């Protein structure tokens, strides 16, 4: 009985070490898979993924910004912009990330912060950098284009006034149905609400395209 037990233990030990070795070899693979899963979560607006990214990388950015003439709030803003850039990048079909998430976020933040320092003419000529970074120029051009369009839409929507702003936001952003919006806003029927929405939409398009054609 005791002998049997001993041999089982030996077998278990062997299996365990085998597993350990195996784990070691797949650890590298696993890290990569983790990053992929994280990016997938990000693309799907998964709040857990966003939280994980903040938890694992915000400190690095805070560190970098604080060491380069910035404040905590600056770090928060810059990191948020980098998150948006990454988010919009993973949304596109042709998305490939050629480096670690950490490196990507840091590169974007570094460039954005450098630009802001230049704008505030606070740049001292050299950055205090400890992290690796890659060239993200193309991504940044893309990001800035999207940023400009976002600002235009934001401005156009905010110049509409009520009830146009809330009605259009309800329909296009919160994806509510016309009947629901008619009830919310107190129109007697959906057709009246549609009529109002149409008038608002014309105004919004006019406001938006007035800037968009100039800007592009």
């Amino acid at each position: 009985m005791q002998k049997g037990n001993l041999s089982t233990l030996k077998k278990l030990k062997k299996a365990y070490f085998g597993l350990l070795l195996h784990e070691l070899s797949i650890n590298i693979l696993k890290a990569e898979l983790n990053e992929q899963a994280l990016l997938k979560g990000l693309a799907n607006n998964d709040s857990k993924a966003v939280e994980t990214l903040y938890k694992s990388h915000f400190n690095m950015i805070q560190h970098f910004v604080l060491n380069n003439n910035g404040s905590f709030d600056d770090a928060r803003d810059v990191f948020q912009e980098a998150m948006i850039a990454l988010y919009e990048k993973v949304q596109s079909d042709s998305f490939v990330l050629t480096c670690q998430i950490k490196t990507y976020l840091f590169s974007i933040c570094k460039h954005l912060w450098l630009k802001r320092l230049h704008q505030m003419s606070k740049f001292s000529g050299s950055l205090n950098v400890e992290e690796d970074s890659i060239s993200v120029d193309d991504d940044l051009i893309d990001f800035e284009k999207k940023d400009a369009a976002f600002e235009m839409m934001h401005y156009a929507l905010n110049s509409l006034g009520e009830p146009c702003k809330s009605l259009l936001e309800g329909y296009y952003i919160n994806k509510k149905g016309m009947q629901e919006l008619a009830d919310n806003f107190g129109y007697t029927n959906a057709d009246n609400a549609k009529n109002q929405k149409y008038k608002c939409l014309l105004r919004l398009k006019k406001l938006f395209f007035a800037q968009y054609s100039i800007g592009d």
Partner: protein
Amino acid sequence: MEDRKLLETIEDYLTGKMSAQEMATFEITRKNTPELDQMVVEHSLFLQQMDAYATRRNFTKLTESTFQHLLARGEWAMNSALPSKVKMIQLWNKYKKVTAIAASVGGFIALATSAFIMYFAPSLNGNKLLQLSKDIEVIKKNQQVQGHLLNEVKSKVPENATLLSGGSGFLIDPKGYIITNAHVIKGNGAIVINNLGQELHASIIYADKNIDLALLKIEDKDFSAPATIPFTIRKKMSDLGEEIFTLGYPRNDNTIVYGKGYLSAQTGFEGDSSTFQVQISANPGSSGAPLFNDKAELIGIISTREKLAVGVAFAIKSNKIIDLMHAVNDKEEANDVKLKISKEAHQETFNRKNQITNYKNYIFSVRSYN
């Protein structure tokens, strides 16, 4: 109406809300009508932009709430300047020994200095602060001058008593209660002198050296009590930059002096939270002088000034006066002391000149003797 239907149809087409048959018909019409085609392209671009806008806005909200959530959970310390770790470690390794020696020497010096200061200056903060009470000699001289000028009036200071200190004070209750600094009252007895030069006997009711406030009561048949107090006491902290003025007796000839300034910091010497800093010219004798704002509120009482910085004075916050009044009311209930905190200010148009003319009757020069 037709335009509206048209745009709705285009939108249905672009967002895939059409049936296959409708779609086919629409596409044929589109091919044959360049205007329609143009409208479709334009609206498609617009919807794309709107979609991008909506997506980014929703994501921004998500990052914001995530960030706030993590911040609230204490994931990051806000505004903590994190020094560069690597550099710090390098510097630490390099200067470890020097730092250790410097720290021990520094520690020794710090201890020795504080022992030294504790021994030689038990009450005041190093030598950087100057209490604004007048010293004995000045008062003595002042008494001589007064004696010379007003021969017929006999001083109410007992003949064999020595004057120890003096300053300013002000009435806070019509029954004759006067607030001044505790350091103004160095002796056992006190007199107050009103702005007409009339001396009045006063008894010391209460003195708290920690907050540096004292309460006197005029006990003299010559005292004509006013009906009310023309100013209120501010309960909250005053605003930075608020214009303030003071009335006190810094001069030797017992003339009331007006001074104007502003609140320059909301804490006092070395961050003391019971006092605040004012930019005003204060001289010995200003101690105990009240500070008012434009709204006829008493906001503080001048107590000390910085020795080296001209024009910088420190004042005790007015809420400390309220605290003291409450404390006295509680403690002296048996002795029938009941201080009334003035609630209504006299609204004499709040004109500064009128304010001063009125207030000066409530402000006294204070002398203490043994």
